[in-house]
């Protein structure tokens, strides 16, 4: 509404009249903490675990190296030692190859020299009660429809995420039948459009939205919330651009067929993970003490971050329409 600029103009006028000065940070944090981030789920055999150092704000000069890292990944009490997968600017990524199913209890703990040990635990949620269908919406656009059913009557909000992964296969076959076919695979990132299925009258001028795109487990994911079951059949529509599978190169010696496959996944996300990924922090208003202090601490005991399981329903790999 047009009144919002009027109100904001008044507030800005007040702000313009104010004066500012720098001061010492009024904190004395007692050392650094570990920061861990992982989102284990069923239908994914590999869990990526990121670990890095959270530096006290009063001592901050840049990222800090970690040494003597110990990490343990447990599923229903059985331990698995994650392997170091990569290290980038003192962010250490570990992988744990353990298949999970709904109801599994996943625990992670980690330690490093000079930092308090951290622990976290989470259970794999049930998959969403849903149906999935698809149709060609327009030429070049596939429309995926999810109908999520809510009949539990709890009144509690549920949280979801939609992730789309794609692979492009360049399948090369030779005229010479003695030569073996070759396939080159590359991963695709989709720029798909999606709107919140819950019509909200919120005007997100303070920065908070009920739908957000974020990066989870190396994949782009759109996360959103429902209305606590008021809408019993939640319709979610995702439009995915596609290119027809076709011969890319046809020459005398060989032909290359370009085939695209994609995988649509719907996740049930625990509240703690949703609030962590979509925090309600408006730092200016928080600094003024004008909004409740939703600080999205995650669920890591002794440190920061999140280790929260997600319940995944996967469409499997689907070929494009021809």
């Amino acid at each position, binding site marked *: 509404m047009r009144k919002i600029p009027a109100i904001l103009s008044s507030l800005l006028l007040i702000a313009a009249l104010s004066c500012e000065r720098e001061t010492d940070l009024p904190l004395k944090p007692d050392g650094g903490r570990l920061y861990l981030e992982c989102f284990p789920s069923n239908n994914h055999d590999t869990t990526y675990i990121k670990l890095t150092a959270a530096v006290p704000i009063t001592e901050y000069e840049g990222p800090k190296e970690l040494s003597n890292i110990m990490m343990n990944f447990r599923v229903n009490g059985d331990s698995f030692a994650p392997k170091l997968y990569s290290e980038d600017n003192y962010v250490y990524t570990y992988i744990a190859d353990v298949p999970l199913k709904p109801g599994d209890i996943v625990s992670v703990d980690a330690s490093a020299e000079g930092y308090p040990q951290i622990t976290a635990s989470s259970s794999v949620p049930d998959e969403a009660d849903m149906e999935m269908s698809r149709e060609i919406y327009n030429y070049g656009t596939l429309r995926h429809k999810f109908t999520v059913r809510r009949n539990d009557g709890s009144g509690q909000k549920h949280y979801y995420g939609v992730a789309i992964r794609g692979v492009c296969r360049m399948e090369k076959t030779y005229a010479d039948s003695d030569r073996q076919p070759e396939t080159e695979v590359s991963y695709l990132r989709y720029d798909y459009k999606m709107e919140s299925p819950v019509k909200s009258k919120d005007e997100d001028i303070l920065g908070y939205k009920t739908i957000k795109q974020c990066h989870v487990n190396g994949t782009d994911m759109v996360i959103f919330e429902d209305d606590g079951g008021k809408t019993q059949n939640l319709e979610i529509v995702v439009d995915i651009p596609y290119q027809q599978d076709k011969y890319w190169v046809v020459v005398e010696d060989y032909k290359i067929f370009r085939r695209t496959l994609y995988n649509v996944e719907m996740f049930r996300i625990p509240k703690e993970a949703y609030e962590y990924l979509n925090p309600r922090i408006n730092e200016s208003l928080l600094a003024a003490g004008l909004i409740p202090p939703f600080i999205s601490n995650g669920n890591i005991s002794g440190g*920061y971050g999140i280790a929260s399981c997600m319940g995944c329903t996967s469409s499997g790999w689907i070929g494009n329409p021809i």
Partner: protein
Amino acid sequence: MKGFLTLCSIFLAFLNVCFPAAADEKEIADTLERVIISAEKSPIAYTGLKRLDRKELIAGTAVLGTPDVIKVLQNISGVASGMELMSGLYVHGGDGSDNLFLLDGVPLFQVSHLAGLFSSFNTDIIQSADFYKSGFPARYGGKLSSVVDITTTDGSMEKFGGSVSIGLIDGRINLNGPIVKNKLSYNVAIRRSWLDAIIAPILAFNNSGSDTKTKGGYALFDSDVNLAYAPTKSDKINFRFFAGTDHFSYSKITQEKYYGKEIYDAESGVKTNMKWGNIAASSSWNHIFSQRLALSAMLYYSKGYSDISDWQKSNDFSDDVLTSGTFTETSVSSANAAGIKSALVMSFKHHNLSAGIEYRSSWYNPSHTKVKTKGEDIMTDSGSGKYLSHEVSAFAEDEMTYGPFSLTAGLRLDGYFADGAAYFRPQPRLAASYNITDDIIAKASYEAMSQYSHLLSSIYIDLPTNIWMPSTSIVKPSDSHQAAAGIYARISKNWHVDASGYYRSIRNCLIYSGSGSLFPPIDKWEEEFISGKGRSYGAELEVKYLSGKFLGSAAYTLSWSERKFDELHSSWFRDRFDNRHKLTLTASYRITENIDINATWNFHSGNRVTVPEHIVNLPGTGTKFLFSEPYNAKMPDYHRLDLSCNFHKKTKRGNESIWNISIYNTYCRMNPILMRTTINLENKPVATIYSLVPIIPSFSYTLKF
């Protein structure tokens, strides 16, 4: 006679009115008051009662020339004032929306103007204000933290009188007098700001020579009307009306010319109008049956409302055709309460009994929005459901006095019904005092309080977009239990000391979490409340020095205020106005018969803010601030000195004129209102403090007649 006076005193406290006290019959009123106060249980025998008369309410520094009741109450120990200049009252760890504001017994929803800068109470018509922070009598209910019970003055039954005041940003007129001598009187007080009149010529200057005209302004308007009718010596009937209104407008209109086959004139632009406030009306009847029995009855209606409209016009000129489109959107919300209450007061040798009942119906229209295009075509007409609640209360209280020992024991029973939910809240109230000697009184109190209406406010500022909503089956009432004890001592003729301590717990403490918008989402508001617990405890000390010319006082508070919300943090955390220390020093000195000076120095520990404690760098995400605990840091301490001086003079016609000169924040301490953590150019985190209020000198002129 003593019994009659005692009855009067209880009645005075109970109904705020005993006799049609004449506004200008000051001496008579003072004498009566002294007699009454000497007969009743003194306010000092209560743990948390402050009784402020009009003199005390206007004695403080008038910010921008306007004396303010709530800013005087902010100086009282145990009260946190919140953000600077705002009319916040955070009593014993409570929230700003937990206070019961009664104007002549009528509850008000909206009590401040201009986002909380000024309160809606016009001091010209106020007789007294009773402020309770503990030891609540059983007749009060419906809010958790405090009671601000304001009584207005009846007009004189004898002769015409009044006053005119002019301040920097507003003016006030008060007129009172008899309509029918000794039977019917009126008292009317009006206040209006003239910020809009100040801004208008500035805007006109800017607009000169331009095709675009910008207009706008802000005005506050308060009116109080009190009609008093005394048909017999034992009866008094009052009709009272109050309206406190804020009006903000803004428009930007451009005159446009389009050249085609002919020249077309058209205008385009935007207009915004916002009007909000509170209106209240009541009629009351007080009857004294005998020296031992009196009755009061009251009908009232109160409405807090907000009315916001936008208008937008744009033009399109193509193919030599001018097409204009208009868009209008209006959004209306209100909270209404209508009630009837009656009470009976009986006086015996050792017992003063009071009992009463109250029925209150409240209905809430949180939002109704209409959108129109050109003409009368309604595009959308949407609104949330109306919410209706019923509150039935009964109370009984006995004030027993046996020699030096006094005990006020009361019980309030509330029945609350709304949206298929029913809540019953028995609320015991106990207040005891014991006169150890003639000069020393020990006192203690315990009470339970419940609150059935809750404020939906996206940000903690008093905005017209804030909405009151009732308790429902999902949003349960809030409950509070408080115990307090203290001791009052008159050390000498001049020195008085009052020390007390309190502990308070709050159950189902509510935070509205719908911070995604300035406009609370009224379609799912119940889900946006999160529930937690609160506790507060502390000690308060007041020392007063009273002599003929000099009055001085020091009020110190040592307090803790904590919250526990599982959705915010796993353990107890400090509240945002957990000001550990608070000290208010006031001094008033009458230099001559015509000149007096007043000084107030306020100090409190800084308000708490939430700042990041650690930093992490993640690939793809960048620098991320990490927060360990809500309100984990304290801003720099707050202090300021206010000075004021009053020059009294008799005019040639024998009227009194008063010049008031006030300086707010005399030594221009730039107190912080917010603190933000940022990364500076050297990639170092720094805290930046923002301050708003410098020194504010002001003056006002009052003529009494």
